[in-house]
């Protein structure tokens, strides 16, 4: 199966502002991709380009094997989009909106629609202009996933959801991956939630690619150490090793975030600082995110 989203030297500018700069990226098929980055890093622009709402200033963007600006019925019928807001005809009821959307897809899954309505606790008889922001987001999600999309783009899908609805959504997305075997690209600031389902991380920083890698590989690359000094000594205030990326704690016990070095280097580190690494654990996405950004800044 070809890659559902490929960009080459993708560049998007709005007047003098460069939103994306020379982004070359290939999202593998069948992955759940976490698209992370700071505000203004280009996540939404990338999603806009991927679904054809925006056209590249330079470079190419190919979605489901076709230039994203030329998506036609065959691609659109397997593309799912969950936007932040504004997807609805306000005077309709939830049921009418669902019926309207369903009429354009041959493979609309009614049982899935009903299951989601139940799980997300959304009343189909309600009018759309009476829905809360959270309910609107739920409806947007249902509209985006009931036609078994091969590529699902979710832009901040959980920002207005309560914790219970978030859990339901995450569970559903996991089921979706198993059932549809499609690709999901999810942009979110709720990293602790997202990390439960993603297996690939794309991190953008100021419009450029910071990292695109499997999540487990990143977890193997970085770790958090708990370090204590050998008897009679103290830990230094700052570690000079370039692979020590952050330090917290005092002279008796420190918490280090490190890019994992080789075993020889670890031995050297222990000997040089008279320190013992008493615990090593993988970093979660919330801890990884600032490290990835900082490391890229330092590299530049």
């Amino acid at each position: 199966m070809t890659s559902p989203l490929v960009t080459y030297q993708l560049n998007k500018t709005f007047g003098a502002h460069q939103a994306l700069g020379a982004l070359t990226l290939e999202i593998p098929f069948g992955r759940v991709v976490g698209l992370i980055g700071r505000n203004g890093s280009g996540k939404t622009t990338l999603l806009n380009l991927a679904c054809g709402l925006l056209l590249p200033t330079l470079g190419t963007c190919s979605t489901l094997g076709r230039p994203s600006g030329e998506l036609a019925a065959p691609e659109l019928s397997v593309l799912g989009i969950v936007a932040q807001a504004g997807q609805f005809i306000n005077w309709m009821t939830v049921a009418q909106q669902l019926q309207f959307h369903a009429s354009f897809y041959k493979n609309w899954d009614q049982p899935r629609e009903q299951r989601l309505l139940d799980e997300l606790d959304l009343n189909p008889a309600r009018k759309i202009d009476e829905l809360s922001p959270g309910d609107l987001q739920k409806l947007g999600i249902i509209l985006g996933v009931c036609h078994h999309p091969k590529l699902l783009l979710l832009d901040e899908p959980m920002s207005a959801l309560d914790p219970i609805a978030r859990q339901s959504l995450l569970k559903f997305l996991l089921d979706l991956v198993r059932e549809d075997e499609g690709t999901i690209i999810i942009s979110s600031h709720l990293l602790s939630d997202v990390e439960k389902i993603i297996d690939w991380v794309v991190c953008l920083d100021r419009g450029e690619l910071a990292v695109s890698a499997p999540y487990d590989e990143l977890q193997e690359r970085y770790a958090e150490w708990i370090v204590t000094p050998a008897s009679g000594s103290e830990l230094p205030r700052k570690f000079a090793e370039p692979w020590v990326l952050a330090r917290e704690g005092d002279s008796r016990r420190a918490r280090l975030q490190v890019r994992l070095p080789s075993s020889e280097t670890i031995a050297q580190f222990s000997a040089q600082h008279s320190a013992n690494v008493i615990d090593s654990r993988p970093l979660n996405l919330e801890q990884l995110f600032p490290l990835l950004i900082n490391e890229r800044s330092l590299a530049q």
Partner: protein
Amino acid sequence: MNWRVYLTLLRPWHSAQMVGLLFMLFFGLRMVVINLLGNTEGNALAGWGFVMPVIFGFVLTDAVRAPMHHPFGMFLPDLRRHLARWHLGTMGTLTLLCTGMIWKYDSALPPLTVAGIVAVLNLILLPGIWQVIGRVSQLFVLLVLGILTIAMVFPEELRLSILAHPWSIGLGAWALAWFFFHGVFSCRSGKRNAQIPYLPFISSSISTRKKAEKSEGRTSSKVKHPSPWTTTPSDGSLRAWLDVPHYVLTGKNLIGSFMPLLRLCVLGGLSAILFAQNDSGEIDRVLYRFVWFYQKPDNLIFWIVILNSIRTTGFLQPSCVYPISRAQQAKVHYLNFVIGMIVKITAIGTTFVLVAWFVANRHDWPRPMLGVVNLFQMLAWLFAVGSLLQGISLRYKIRQNTNAQSILLVLAFICAVIFSVFVATHLTFIFSLTGVACLVVLIATSQYVYYAVVRRYFRKMDFIMLNPSRSGSAP
């Protein structure tokens, strides 16, 4: 897409309501035109060839355009093809219906040519170019109203033109209909017409920041901010109250500020076209009659009530959160209403007397006068009808940013027309002492009730409207 979904999209009940209201609007307009020009000769062409197609087109266009201009419209597979197929069927049926009705009453007219005209007017509001700048659509609606007015004033002339040039008019009409239809439903135009500012992804932090940066750059040199409050808002002085309408009326963008002028220009242009149909002597005659028409209070009410209803709803916009108390806002609203009425009556009265004098002097015709009794009548009826309409707009929260604005407009027309008929048949009663006493009572009662409604509204309303698309029931 199936017929059931398409029918849902057309909102049958809502559409039927709108068709009914618009039909009454044009019926009223035709009465006024007949009153103005003394033209009582109507025919099926004006009604079924011009008015009904525009009404059908106006109502159904919005239903079809809505999904195409929504952000999701670009992602639904073959949306435009499906909509084009169904809409073509609907418009075809309506064209056949209208043509059939004309054929029934006037079989001399060539049906293909008539069908072409009907088709154009069915589709004329469909192209998205009228929506490029929000208020341009209002101008366009005015233009359509102008065309309809001409069609209703000169139905016989139009009929003769069609009979004289059936092929050229027919071909031109069908070509224009194809152009409108293809332009709207082709895929290429789909992307062009997508309402980019409403697209969800676009409203991301980047574009928001960029917009903010742009707007900061602009405001420093070009954009005029609304005048700051120069008085302590809570002092309750007349100056503080007068600052509120100033804020509302001047705190708009540049285009917004000039739109009333543009609308007047369009109306003026249309009037000029209307008058240009006659020779110079006829223009004066029509103008003189026009002035007499305005001198009658029932007809003047018709226009002033509409203008005032639209203008004062500006105060109900939720964005206008004034730094004065709710009680003061009620007073401001009421004062604006009263002052607006008096100013308009005086201005229009003076204008029509001056114009009439000018025309009468040229032809040695009798000079019309604006009598005190007339002025008093106008005030009384305007306050009564105006208060009623304002009360309705307050009760149902009809604001400028709701779809209900058009309903208000239609309501104003209908009330004014019904009222005109009533006054025209009971005018002599007003000149009696009892009549004047009744007018005084009418003014006092209507204003007491209206002020009570205004106070209650401002005391109980939510200033933030959660669901702007609804005309809304009480919170």
